């Protein structure tokens, strides 16, 4: 009995590991055709679902790869929409040149060719990262304000119910935030800053509002671990509240607060529903923050059902990229900031 119980418990515990490993492996296997097709270049390629005619002869192919790489290097990873558009034009022109030579080749009866659909993840990756950054820029000051307010400023009678309310708000399903963003917040932002009701900015802000309660609750918990004795000593020396918070509370609770920020970052990174409504879902860089763009989870949510073959494999590749990205973020949080409890 004892032994059986122990074994079953151990099995359950290993299940966590098995699932995680299986996820990685299954995603990799499913993404393999796309990985073989596009390689690491997938991450830096900005076109999605664009047909391109390519040569099959190896030397030509290598030449073209070099050409593409060159263009991509010149494009770099800057978020400047204008330059991207220009580079895009270059791309198209290059393609046309190739096309003409291809035709010539065919007339001469040498060289084989086929059309290949190019998929690139750069737009959703940049969209994901930027929307998350906007969310963080917006959420961090407000969440810290709430955490400090709850733990240091508000009287107990107010801090308790507001604290509970914040924790409850953290549990509201993300789809609610997305829906509110689409029907109320998006138009509000469009009135304020101009532009579209669905845009990178709206997506980032909705994400920010979504993680505020989560971040505030975690930071408040971190701040409340500061021993009263430390704070009282500082007050006794005549420090003001700002000085106590800045020089005593924050340094003491630093790792917890940074941890809460990174966990929120990870949550915003992989968030689907809050963003799906408001980011627009177009494969285009946002030249201005008020332009629509795309993010990895949204691409996955929107195009999974109607994909098959290579395009499905591409989506798995994308999921793998997201998985690795969030894995790294959470890993950093866990191993560098939350190590000591």
């Amino acid at each position, binding site marked *: 009995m004892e032994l059986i119980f122990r074994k079953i418990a151990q099995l359950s515990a290993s*299940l966590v590991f098995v699932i995680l490993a299986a996820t990685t492996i299954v995603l990799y296997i499913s993404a393999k055709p796309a990985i073989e097709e596009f390689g690491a270049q997938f991450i830096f390629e900005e076109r999605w679902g664009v047909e391109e005619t390519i040569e099959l002869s190896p030397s030509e192919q290598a030449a073209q790869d070099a050409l593409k790489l060159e263009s991509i290097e010149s494009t770099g990873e800057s978020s400047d929409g204008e330059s991207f558009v220009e580079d895009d034009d270059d791309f198209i022109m290059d393609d046309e040149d190739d096309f003409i030579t291809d035709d010539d080749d065919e007339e001469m009866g040498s060289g084989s060719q086929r059309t290949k659909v190019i998929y690139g993840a750069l737009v959703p990756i940049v969209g994901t990262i930027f929307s998350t950054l906007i969310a963080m820029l917006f959420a961090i000051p407000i969440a810290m304000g709430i955490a400090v307010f709850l733990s240091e400023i508000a009287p107990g009678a107010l801090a308790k119910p507001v604290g509970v309310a914040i924790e409850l708000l953290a549990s509201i*399903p993300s789809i609610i935030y997305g829906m509110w963003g689409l029907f109320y917040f998006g138009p509000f932002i469009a009135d304020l800053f101009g532009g579209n009701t669905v845009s990178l900015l709206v997506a980032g802000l909705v994400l920010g509002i979504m993680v505020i309660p989560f971040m505030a609750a975690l930071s408040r918990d971190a701040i409340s671990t500061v021993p009263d004795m430390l704070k009282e000593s500082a007050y006794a020396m005549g420090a003001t509240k700002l000085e106590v918070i800045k020089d005593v509370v924050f340094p003491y609770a630093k790792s917890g607060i940074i941890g809460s920020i990174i966990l929120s970052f990870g949550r915003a990174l992989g968030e689907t529903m809050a963003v799906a409504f408001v980011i627009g879902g177009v494969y285009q860089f946002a030249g201005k923050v008020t332009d629509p763009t795309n993010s990895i989870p949204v691409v996955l949510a929107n195009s999974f059902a109607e994909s098959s073959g290579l395009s499905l494999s591409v989506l798995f590749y994308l999921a793998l990229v997201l998985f690795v990205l969030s894995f790294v973020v959470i890993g950093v949080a866990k191993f560098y900031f939350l190590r000591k409890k």
Partner: protein
Amino acid sequence: MRLLMNRLFLIFSTLAALVGLFFLAWILYTLCAKGIVGLNLDIFTKDLIDGGLRNVIVGQIMMSGVATIIGIPVGILAGIYLQEYGGNSKSTEFLRDLSDVMMSAPSIVVGTFVYAIVVVPTGHTSGWAGVLALFILMVPIIVRTTDDMLKLVPIELREAGIAIGASKYHVTMNIVVRYAKAGILTGILLAFARVVGETAPLIYTSGSSEFWSTDLTSTFPSLTVSIYNLATMPDDEMVQLGWTGAFLLTTMVLIINLLGRYASNKKRS
């Protein structure tokens, strides 16, 4: 100057708190204002195809419920292993970290995983695929809370149990787990509340159906996926139905959360 800075800082924090709370209040207000309007008996007695939400609500609860029923033993046993048998060895710590990583893994990735292992081989979306996705999301949460709650059990209780000759299994099940029961229950309720509001992993695992169904082997009605579909429709009536669904979903999640708090408070007092 110091006092001025201090005052400015306090005003800033309070303002930040107010801004944050303002947005959150705004969300709740629209949710209630838009949601309650559409509330009527038809919502609970008719299926989605006839303009009600009965089938999707039942479907959502059923999927989350089945996931919870499977997830409870697995999660609790894993938590028990980590705390009672694993000790503080390297591998236990590793499993603990992995479980935490999984807890914050993007839910859409879990959806793609289940799609690859269930939907692709069977060729269609099904309730079981949705259950599996929710199960994967919920287990790490239960593991984490069970682990934390068992940590709070005083070591003396275990020693006393061992001292009178009880086996480790008996001590664990009859003393340790019993002591931590309320906390574990809270964890389960919170995990349930979390998965009941999940949308992303269900979109292409369970899909959503407009018809009444309790057959988990076929495409299954889901409230959250239906809300997503309804809200993006051009028809105002559909959008209204989506808001009502959103209101009901939020109410459900908040009530379960309050129940969870109540369970853990009762224990402490």
